[in-house]
């Protein structure tokens, strides 16, 4: 074998290794930037959907473009697999929140987003909140990738995200968390 062949092989392999190293480093930077970007929870909203009656639903908005009564909107997820248990849980939360707040205060609109399209519609008559079967892609993506179990997203009167409320299995504890975030 010619003596210069190993030298050429070493040079070419080293150059290729360097090139691949640079490409891997670039890909890692892109991956990291994308993860940071998508981990960010958008504060704006796109609150349009289809309610359990099959009609388009949007929050009730006053002439100034804000939620009616300068209220709040709370979004949470209804797990259809838990059936009426889930509805009872949120009814209890809503009842406890109402009891803990002064009468005639700013209203809270509650939207329960079904995790299986139309499958939660049957529970609307039992629920003290609006069951939403479908949402804008933007809003549904945020809801589906942010809310864990009984957690919730609280939007203020300008429909800007105010808080991401953590999850609790106890309705009274969940209600107190919501009240705390309403005050904060």
């Amino acid at each position, binding site marked *: 074998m010619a003596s210069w062949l*190993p*030298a050429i*092989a*070493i040079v070419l*392999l*080293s150059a*290729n*290794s360097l090139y*691949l*190293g640079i*490409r*891997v480093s670039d*890909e*890692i930077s*892109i*991956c990291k930037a*994308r993860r940071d*970007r*998508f981990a960010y929870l958008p504060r704006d909203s*796109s609150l*349009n*959907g*289809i309610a359990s009656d*099959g009609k*388009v639903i949007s929050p009730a908005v006053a002439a100034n473009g804000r939620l009616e009564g300068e209220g709040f909107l709370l979004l949470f*997820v209804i797990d259809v697999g838990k059936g009426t248990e889930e509805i009872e849980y949120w009814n209890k939360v809503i009842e406890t929140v109402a009891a803990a707040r002064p009468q005639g205060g700013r209203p809270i609109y509650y939207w329960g*987003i*079904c*995790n*299986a*399209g*139309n499958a939660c519609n049957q529970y609307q008559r039992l629920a003290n909140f609006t069951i939403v*079967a*479908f*949402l*804008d*892609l*933007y*809003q*549904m*993506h945020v*809801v*589906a*990738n942010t809310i864990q179990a009984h957690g919730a997203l609280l939007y203020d009167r300008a429909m800007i995200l105010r808080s991401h409320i953590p999850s609790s299995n106890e309705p009274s504890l969940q209600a107190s968390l919501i009240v705390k975030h309403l005050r904060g």
Partner: protein
Amino acid sequence: MRINWRHFNECLIVALIVVNVFELELFYWVRGKTGLYQPTSTFPSLAGFGSNPQRYIPAVTPCVLLRVSSDSCNYCRVDQPFYRRLAEQVRHAGCESVIVSPKSGQLNFQGDAWGTIHLRFVDYRLGRILVPFVTPQTILLDGDGHIRWYREGTMDQKALAKALRELARLHSDRGAKTG
């Protein structure tokens, strides 16, 4: 001690080959993580509400072309010739073509010759997987919801050729299955 240069070079070449193979594997692994979707991602059935608004129940088709687009996205206009060509071929293959905008008011879609369905609202399962933050996106799914090909950003001639190749492969796979 005297260095055996021949032996040293052989060892160095072997080591460099190992490093190159490792880097190549790492490159493809990281690249798989960089994309919006993993190659193993499976989409649920595209349940939602159309623009009427009317409930859209997807038909059983061998594939679905899914596009995320909006009127305010200039890049979505740039690649229209390529996307239309693909949509046309997809329809000829007996598949469905579905378009969805990130926000429901962002697309004034008047329909096209290939019967593309405009999905205004999506259900939880589709909303969970489909990323709304990048437009345009063009995704070719097989009948089981597996990603066969996808493109983030504008399509070009090369992307179209790749998508058409994948569509043809899908067609031949189906032919082999049905005998």
